């Protein structure tokens, strides 16, 4: 018989898996990213449906309780994801800068060609 917390977590995980599936279908995720998230959520699903597996995992890592090993893994994963997001933001920042630079060159070129043509017109008069 499932407990209330198991039912709540189960609904949440199934919802999360459906989101991964939809995003992957829309090709907003790469296959690699989709697989990564499937593994995470399916691992969560196993942990919720078969809580004893987390205790076995805890024993394997030498941690007392099953819930503790989940918290440790989740923390490490969160730190890694924050780092990846930081790197991604840096990449976006570089892309914006490249755009800004290109616009700056185009505008400067346009301005100098407008100026030189108006000078030419002025000297003809």
């Amino acid at each position, binding site marked *: 018989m499932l407990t209330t917390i198991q039912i709540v977590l189960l609904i949440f995980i199934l919802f999360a898996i459906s989101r991964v599936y939809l995003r992957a279908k829309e090709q907003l995720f790469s296959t690699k990213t989709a697989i990564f998230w499937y593994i995470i959520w399916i691992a969560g699903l196993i942990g919720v449906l078969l809580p004893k597996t987390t205790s076995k995992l805890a024993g394997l890592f030498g941690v007392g309780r099953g819930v503790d090993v989940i918290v440790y893994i989740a923390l490490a994963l969160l730190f890694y994801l924050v780092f990846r997001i930081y790197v991604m933001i*840096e990449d976006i920042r*570089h892309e*914006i*800068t490249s755009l*800004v*630079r290109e616009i*700056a*060159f185009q505008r*400067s070129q346009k301005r*100098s060609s407008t100026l030189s043509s108006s000078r030419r017109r002025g000297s003809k008069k």
Partner: protein
Amino acid sequence: MKVIVAVSAFNESKVIYRVVKSIPRRIKNTTISIVVVDDGSFDNTAQEARKAKAIVVRHILNRGLGAAIKTGIDYAQRQQYEAMVTFDGDGQHNPADIEKIIAPIFKKEADLVVGSRFTRSQNVPVDRLIINWLANLATLLLFGVSSTDSQSGLRAFSKKALNLIDYKGERMDFSSEILLEAKKHKLIVTEVPIEAIYTKYSRIKGQKNINSINVLLRFLVRIFR
């Protein structure tokens, strides 16, 4: 030799005209062009720079000093300049030092010349001394490059350096990366003593000490990405 001075400026309308006008237009029979990279200023920096007869390349958004210098490098490459000097737009450099800093490039003795404020004793604020010492230490530990002034804004690049140096840092973190790139491409780097002019204005406009932590963080992310 075709030489250009790239002046990076952000909200410098009060001083940019004077700074551009103070830059020599001729050094040893070489005509010097001036490009002001206006890094998304909200004031009349671009107009003032044009009034002073500088070429202006204007970022529509503020992207940081490193990005502005990179725009200067790209401009110099596209226009086929053979040497480039970077010069801060807040008036903290002595224009007379441009001749000193470009001399090793003219003589083909160096590819990258760094103007060092710390090779001779002069009136530098204590906080700047400490921050610079820490930045030099971080540059040495993280990149293995030794410099007495890794954060200097006055530098000269040869054509070879312009073509080879490519960095990612957009804020203050680019300075050390330039040295790393020079090391990577085995460029000849030399330091030349320069004068540091610390006015109330340049102190307000300059790098904030607290930003140093952010700069260090960016270094680490770039290494471990």
